[in-house]
């Protein structure tokens, strides 16, 4: 049954990935694959749709994996990078970068925006981490989560201050960007998102057994030989990096990291190696589907997908809270 679930998820994800480029405000006939289409349709397919679907898939999968890892680390099903202020931190970094207006790239490859977003994400993670270790006794996952929510508000308000103090054009750019969207032209964004996905998937898969033990409690994990402190540092660093890259490309896209691992846990169980594969497949497909909805519902205009995921996600979040209590 559970083996079947992974196979089913794989087929589902593949189907979504293959079908998505043809669906939108303007549907593209399958024949265009074989050249039976005019030039503008071909441009639409290969310059806009295919890169966008790829970017959406990679982003969704990355967010889902980061969420899965954070939920295991904090032993709390409500934890995810966007709930704990990591995404808001990344967004703040990016907004500061836009505000300062000094454009640079590292080695001509990594955009300054990515670096700034990573710095912001890292700052947020570090602040949570430091808050945890400042209190002499271990911080309970619940208070850590609250610290994250507070952090999220803090960074959010700083973000507002910068937006408020910016010029008209910058403010619009920041606001539009902070809604989170997958608009892209050409493959460069998708190609930047894929390495981030690769990094986080390898970490999630390799540390699967450690995450399994960590879910049972820090002492249980430590007594089984897991180097909890090292694992925690690895996770904080890699999640900040990956979320930083992602936020730089798409802006903050909320709730995917919270929602997807939950659904996957129901489908394939709690073993983190299986869960990592499931989150990859389903997370990718989920965001692509949301993006189709964002493109089609309001056609010919389109809505940033981040608004849609936040809307679906927050309702899901409420339902989850009620269910956990009850």
């Amino acid at each position, binding site marked *: 049954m559970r083996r079947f679930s992974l196979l089913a998820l794989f087929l589902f994800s593949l189907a979504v990935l293959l079908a998505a480029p043809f669906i939108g405000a303007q549907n593209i006939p399958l024949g265009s694959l074989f050249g039976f289409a005019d030039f503008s349709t071909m441009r639409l397919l290969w310059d806009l749709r295919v890169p966008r679907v790829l970017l959406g898939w990679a982003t969704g999968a990355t967010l889902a994996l980061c969420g899965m890892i954070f939920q295991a680390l904090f032993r709390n099903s409500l934890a995810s990078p966007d709930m704990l202020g990591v995404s808001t931190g990344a967004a703040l970094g990016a907004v500061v970068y836009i505000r300062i207006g000094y454009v640079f790239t590292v080695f001509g490859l990594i955009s300054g925006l990515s670096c700034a977003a990573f710095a912001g994400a890292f700052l947020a993670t570090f602040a949570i981490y430091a808050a945890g270790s400042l209190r*002499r*006794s271990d911080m309970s996952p619940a208070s850590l989560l609250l610290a994250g929510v507070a952090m999220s508000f803090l960074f959010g308000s700083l973000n507002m201050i910068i937006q408020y103090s910016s010029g008209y054009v910058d403010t619009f750019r920041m606001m539009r960007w902070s809604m989170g969207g997958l608009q892209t032209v050409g493959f460069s964004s998708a190609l930047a998102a894929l390495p981030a996905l690769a990094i986080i998937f390898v970490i999630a898969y*390799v540390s699967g*057994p*450690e995450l*399994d*033990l960590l*879910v*049972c*409690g820090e*002492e*249980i994990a*430590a*007594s*089984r*030989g*897991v*180097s909890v402190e090292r694992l925690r540092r690895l996770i904080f660093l890699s999640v900040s990096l990956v979320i930083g890259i992602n936020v730089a490309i798409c802006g903050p896209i909320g709730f995917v990291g919270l929602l997807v691992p939950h659904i996957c*846990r129901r489908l394939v169980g*709690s*073993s983190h190696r299986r869960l990592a594969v499931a989150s990859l497949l389903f997370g990718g497909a989920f965001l692509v589907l949301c993006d189709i909805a964002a493109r089609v519902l309001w056609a010919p205009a389109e809505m940033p997908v981040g608004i849609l995921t936040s809307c679906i996600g927050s309702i899901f979040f409420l339902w989850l809270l009620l269910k956990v209590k009850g």
Partner: protein
Amino acid sequence: MSMGAFIEVEGLSLSIGGSRILEDISFSLEKGRFLGIIGPNGAGKSSLLKCIGRLYKRFSGSVRLDGVSLASMPERMLARRIAWVHQTGSDSLPFTVREFALMSRYPWQGAFGGITRKDIEITEAALSVARVEHIADRRLGSLSGGERQKALIAAALAQGTDVLFLDEPTSFLDYRHQVETIELITRVNRERGITVLLVTHDINLALYGADDLLAIKRGEVCWKGPSRDILNGDLLFDIFETEFQSFAHQGQDVPYVVPKGLVR
């Protein structure tokens, strides 16, 4: 230290947030022995066990196992020597008994390695020793306290160590499960030669199973010696600050001890 000392603790002290939890604790234990660590609530028994097993790291003093200092031992190596049965809360662990026991094979697996046939064999053997095969496919969260405790012991056995640490393994258990749990721990100690360190506030539990006792009071060693000797003089009164009365039928090996205040 003494010849054949297997576990040696020297000058162990622990402070948390400025308050002294443990003060200059030293003792040694031979291989295959069963040590009961007893004392009143809040004496520092659990903290002591956690320092020895390096779950707490910020203590002073030294702990040696087989002559090797534990301070510098990598986590996995340590987990191949010492297995834990923790004091468990009501956390709902999302795994079945068998899955959890298999997860305890972690210290023997490589970074990319999966579960081997040998891991499965050892796990199945541990499930059978702890007599939990019939509940092996049930989730830990769905078990009663007693079944769950035996499942956790099975997982600790699956870890394949020669030392077993238990923290209050019978608190919150009903009588039948208390009996079965201490019987299981004693059997593992006698038949497999596993060295046992067990923390408890229950003097009868310690008398039943332990060869040696270490009494802790206000973070210091209050008494140590062969377990039977604790009934001599006013020792129990000194440790627990209440009078005790012992009951023994003829031919019974170990008496049963109750606080006088509980006998009418």
